[in-house]
């Protein structure tokens, strides 16, 4: 039911990009635009965003810089535009922040992102969809240490690193909660400056607990550009999780064709031999 309602809400609100709370089943996630995976410009933009924003706290220690040749960059470009420190192109993408310090600062060391798109996949949703929802799912929340919360991953320790790119948004959080006086609907409105106001309406009858967040961007063009950037970034993360994937699927077609030809030959050979079995 929740799923259906949510779907209707989504269709209805054209400007309201609604994605829901993470805690398990029934979350709607906008599908990650898969076409970006095949687009070098997207992947390169993703790599640039990754090196600029992610690769300060998160490492990608299984990924070598010069592997980015896969997505059309040469060593010169990698060195000049992507590596900010003293690393060589043959090094892996590590960060200077020590995990122990990170734990003190954030409560948890930021995970390595080398294979994150795979690691975040589950039977319920795909990793790319999750990441696409997650990176667009930050909202202001005064109750957390960072002042940010995320609807794809509740109470996450990570702040909204890309907030400057996304720009301000008005957020509406609608919750159905169980209170001492029975169920109630709590609607929290957060304006563009981060000021929150809540209204609580008691409900009668039985209600499932729910949690829904919707956003209204202040600058719609900027929001659209942001969504596109996030799609590129997620495409890069997906690429990085299995860099050989595109080689693999291209090669696979040829391998299957070859085996197909072999199968036909084997079938004919078999026929010839079995002709004298009566």
């Amino acid at each position: 039911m929740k799923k259906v309602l949510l779907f209707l809400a989504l269709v209805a609100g054209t400007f309201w990009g609604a994605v829901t709370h993470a805690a398990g089943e029934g979350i709607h996630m906008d599908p990650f635009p898969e076409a970006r995976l095949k687009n070098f410009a997207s992947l390169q933009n993703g790599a640039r965003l990754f090196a600029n924003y992610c690769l300060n706290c998160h490492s990608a220690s299984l990924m070598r810089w010069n592997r980015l040749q896969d997505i059309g960059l040469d060593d010169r470009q990698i060195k000049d535009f992507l590596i900010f420190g003293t690393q060589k192109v043959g090094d892996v993408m590590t960060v200077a922040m020590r995990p122990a310090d990170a734990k003190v600062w954030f409560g948890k060391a930021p995970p390595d992102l080398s294979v994150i798109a795979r690691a975040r996949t589950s039977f319920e949703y795909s990793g790319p969809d999750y990441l696409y929802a997650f990176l667009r799912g930050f909202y202001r929340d005064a109750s957390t240490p960072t002042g940010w919360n995320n609807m794809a991953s509740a109470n996450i320790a990570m702040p909204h690193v890309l907030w400057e790119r996304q720009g301000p948004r008005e957020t509406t959080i609608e919750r159905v909660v169980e209170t001492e006086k029975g169920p109630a609907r709590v609607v929290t409105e957060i304006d563009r400056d981060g000021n929150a106001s809540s209204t609580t309406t008691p409900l009668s009858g039985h209600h499932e607990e729910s949690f829904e967040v919707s956003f209204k961007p202040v600058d719609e063009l900027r929001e659209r550009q942001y969504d596109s950037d996030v799609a590129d970034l997620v495409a890069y993360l997906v690429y990085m999780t299995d860099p050989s994937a595109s080689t693999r699927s291209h090669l696979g077609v040829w391998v299957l064709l070859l085996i197909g030809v072999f199968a036909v030959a084997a079938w004919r050979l078999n026929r010839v031999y079995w002709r004298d079995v009566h």
Partner: protein
Amino acid sequence: MGLHKSEYKGLLGWIDARMPTMMSEYKKHMSEYYAPKNFNFWYFFGGFALVMLVLQIVTGIFLTMHYKPDARYAFESVEYIMRDVPGGWFIRYMHSTGASFFFLVVYLHMFRGLLYGSYRKPRELVWIFGCLIFLCLMGEAFFGYLLPWGQMSYWGAQVIVNLFGAIPFIGPDLAIWIRGDFVVSDATLNRFFSFHVIAIPLVLLGLVVAHVLALHDVGSNNPDGVEIKDKLDPRTGRPLDGIPFHPYYTVHDVYGLALFLLAFFAILFLAPEMGGYFLEWNNFIPADPLTTPPHIAPVWYFTPYYSVLRATTEDFMWVLAAGVAAYAILLFLVLQRAAVKYAILIVALVLVVLMIGGPLKLDPKFWGVVLMGLSVTIFFALPWIDQAPVKSMRYRPLWHLGLLVAFSVVFLILGYLGTQQPTPFSTYIAQACTLLYFAFFLLMPWWSRAGEFKPVPDRVVFAAH
């Protein structure tokens, strides 16, 4: 001279004169091994299993060249193989896809055995070696699964090793002895590596040789369950319905193998994770002893047995105890020898007391382990509990086939449930399936005799291609 007089010329003659075994074994197992000519689709899978074994060994050798069995580097080294070793991703995916396909073909191979009564006299030993291979294969897969050192590797091993802790008295110490530590750790990884790359494969290879030798001594069964050695050509002394394995079945199997490889490589190249069933998503998170994943599930080929384990809850013990009592009474009523009858009653009584008998009862977890073990090992009993007068399903009542299909469906349901988070409802289903699973085997001595059997032909049914 001491040289054997060879019928061959040239290099082959030279070798044959010095080592006649080579050609005589080649003849015995290939060019003069007479296999029934009516093999069908189901007879491909034994050969496929052999191909998978070789593939796993060869890819395993290459993986071992780059893999580091060290808790600090294991996860990284697997990704290093995937990224930095030339062609490493191909080798690794062959190995991971190969593991699942190995089980797939072994399950189909076993299903064939049930379908055509391939375990029946005189092939009991073939079947027993086969069951031992299956056990080894499960061990091999279990030990190997720890090596990538992801979250699922780690916690899967933790859960399974902890099962040994459920054994009364010695359990906890036994679990520590297996792990070599109080939790799964570097010590565990090292010993599992050793088991995976040398100990189990050695045993496995030996058993496979025994399986094939035992088969070639008694000869292959076939879809009609007719013994082809009963009808020999009076002139040549060869089975009338037999054809030399080589070249007939070698070309036949190569053709089948080509189709099999199409499926294998389609998955390997286009969907190596197979939707999270061949490579579990959680296993791309490095092992973390401090964070238990919310949902721990073994790889698909273990999930039917895992379901049986999880189905054995506190409440289910009453049902099980009732089942044991009912089965004991059934045996008491049908068996003849008084000593055996009373022995069975006493054993059943002890079992029931240990299951539900107040202070004497053992942890349901222990019984879960027992049932899980039994669900795997009960296959050994098939040659003796199947009492049908004919081997092949072709000549048995149609409802026998129905039961076999129902059993397979139960097996698949258990398998599916094992991949999912348990809910109260799914636990009921798993419990019902567990009962049906065991009922299929335990009641087989009776149902396999019942019904109208069709006459078995003298010769195999075969239409020339």
